[in-house]
């Protein structure tokens, strides 16, 4: 198609002149060359992106499932509440419930509850269930005292190693001496799997748990809530401050040396390494203002400082893009300057402002370095109930998990990255959708 076009063009335009035909050919060639380069560049980009996604997803998808074991546990009052006080002081001791869980396991595997010869078996059996299982039972009992003395059938978390084995991350073929899961445990796990008392279930804990030293009971709950608080703080502070500053600079401020200096410095701030903002936050918000360490309020404030220049730059260019004729039209019907800005210019600039804000937020969501400086790299087990409580953030959680040795932490690291990426994709998509919606309205 394009070849025949070329021929006819040559015939019609170049006629008999060979030099002219050669020039034309060269022009087409350079155009083709440039197109090829462009396509190649895009391809390389897509390739790397695909590589990133494949590597993260292949490592991380398993973390969305968690092996659980069904056990029938007798909630023996003699163990958990010897004196029958029903007080949290007695009922709240998770170690007592662990004892009950272990007892149920020994019975299941026909291991004597006492005796020297079976001690080794008992210690192996214990290790296939999570140390957190006691906590699970305790929470059930604390919710319903009526369960005491009864036998309950519950799904309990398998230990990290058992989980890794079931998921095939620990191979059967590895010699026993180097394997985290011993032959006896393998036999038990296989037995339970056949009997249907061992299953891979959707890992809700990944989203609800806080930090834990045991991989099976650690999740991104506390980190996600910390990130959420910070994003809300950034949105609540950076958007109004940034937009107000931009409107003033773009529409009201006179152009003079001062505004020039401010403009240069805003651009500089946007390029300042984020860890510097962390140092600033440490000095100002924690040491000077006395805000609590590791709290998401400080993180939010630091990220606000970091996001402000991005929002200001985006907002100013969005305001600049609104045609001057709209401002004049509004002024000419007798609108004041403020009215012309708020009734006409700002609504037209909204898509651009929103896009800039969401991109700024996305950048803040993925930021780690400044949070390390203000102590948000902390072991936070409980989900923070307010921004003043200690919290971590998603990327910090990823950073912390990536240093852990257990197999189950490796997959959780990737899973947390997937969650973080999902949030970023959602944010960017909402930027696109908002943009479309607002543009269509006009």
């Amino acid at each position, binding site marked *: 198609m394009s070849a025949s076009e070329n021929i006819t063009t040559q015939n019609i335009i170049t006629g008999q002149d060979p030099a002219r035909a050669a020039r034309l050919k060269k022009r087409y060639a350079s155009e083709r060359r440039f197109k090829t380069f462009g396509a190649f560049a895009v391809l390389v980009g897509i390739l790397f992106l695909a590589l990133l996604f494949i590597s993260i997803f292949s490592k991380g998808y398993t973390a969305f499932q968690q092996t659980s074991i069904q056990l029938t546990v007798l909630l023996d009052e003699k163990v958990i509440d010897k004196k029958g006080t029903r007080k949290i002081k007695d009922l709240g001791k998770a170690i007592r419930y662990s004892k009950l869980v272990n007892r149920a396991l020994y019975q299941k595997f026909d291991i004597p509850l006492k005796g020297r010869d079976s001690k080794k078996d008992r210690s192996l059996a214990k290790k296939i269930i999570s140390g957190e299982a006691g906590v699970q039972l305790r929470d059930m009992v604390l919710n319903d005292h009526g369960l005491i003395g009864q036998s309950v059938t519950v799904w309990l978390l398998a230990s990290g190693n058992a989980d890794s084995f079931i998921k095939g991350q620990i191979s059967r073929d590895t010699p026993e001496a180097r394997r985290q899961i011993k032959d006896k445990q393998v036999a038990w796990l296989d037995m339970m799997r056949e009997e249907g008392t061992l299953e891979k279930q959707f890992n809700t804990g990944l989203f609800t748990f806080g930090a834990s030293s045991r991989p099976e009971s650690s999740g991104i709950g506390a980190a996600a809530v910390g990130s959420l608080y910070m994003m809300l703080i950034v949105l609540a502070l950076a958007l109004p401050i940034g937009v107000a500053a931009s409107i003033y600079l773009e529409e009201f401020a006179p152009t003079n040396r001062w505004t020039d200096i401010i403009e240069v410095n805003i651009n500089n701030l946007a390029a300042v390494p984020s860890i510097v903002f962390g140092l600033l936050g440490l000095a100002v918000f924690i040491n000077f203002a006395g805000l609590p360490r590791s709290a998401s309020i400080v993180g939010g404030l630091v990220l606000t400082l970091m996001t402000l220049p991005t929002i200001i730059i985006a907002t100013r260019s969005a305001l600049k893009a609104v*045609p001057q*004729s*709209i401002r*004049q039209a*509004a002024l*000419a*019907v*007798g*609108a004041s300057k403020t009215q012309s800005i708020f009734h*006409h210019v700002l609504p037209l600039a909204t898509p651009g402002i929103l896009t800039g804000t969401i991109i700024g937020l996305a950048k803040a969501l993925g930021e780690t370095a400044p949070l390390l400086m203000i102590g948000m790299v902390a072991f936070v087990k409980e989900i923070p109930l307010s921004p003043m409580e200690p919290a971590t953030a998603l990327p910090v959680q990823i950073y912390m998990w990536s240093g852990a040795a257990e197999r189950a932490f490796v997959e959780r690291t990737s899973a947390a990255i997937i969650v973080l990426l999902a949030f970023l994709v959602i944010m960017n998509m909402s930027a696109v959708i908002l943009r479309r919606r607002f543009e269509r309205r006009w």
Partner: protein
Amino acid sequence: MSQSTQNAVNSSMDKDTEPAVPIKMRGVDVCVHYGDKQALFDVNLEVPEKQVTALIGPSGCGKSTFLRTLNRMNDTIDICRVAGDITLDGQDIYDPKVDVVELRARVGMVFQKPNPFPKSIFENVAYGPRIHGIGQNKIEIEEIVVNSLQKAGLFEEVKDRLDEPGTGLSGGQQQRLCIARAIAVSPEVILMDEPCSALDPIATARVEELIDELRENYTIVIVTHSMQQAARVSQRTAFFHLGILVEEGTTDQIFTHPNDKRTMDYITGRFG
């Protein structure tokens, strides 16, 4: 120079057979600077009430600048300074006590390029009355909108699609929408800055007709590049050249017996 212009004005006024019309706006010794550059030199011009005054002249002669001093649109340009007196009904519009918002409600403006707000046709017209608190309720606003659109000769064309975006209209319709928008705040003077330069001949004819109709109720000052247009729509014409008001008089007189050689050269197409 200014003296001779004044004489010319007086002599032309004497020859006028019509009774003397009250003066709506008056510029006395108007000088405008953009930074170091002077754009207008001692312009003295009177705008009679309920007539169309055309400002003509080659590009960069200051006619648009003068137009914009009449409703202080030049205020929006940082480096622009205006000296001299401009009065509306005898009141100095550059007096610090004058509210520029009120002034612009009395002296409306239509621009070279149609610039409707990217909102519905209805909202375009209703915006002005709303911000000025004209029309207390929905019904009154609706009345104003319909009335303004009718006056701008647009109502019949758009009555079924008032909630469609104003930007979806054709160029000529958009310009008439802008005129309707200007009328909606019931101004006394309407300034038009080359309102037809972006329109095709048919749309131009329609707008010119409209200007002629509007003359009954409004004082109009129009800047135009087209001398035919000035001749067609205006009663008085002022010729600007290099920031100087060269000559001013009834349109008939300017186009048939100009006093100044430069005017003669311009209207006969020898430059510009």
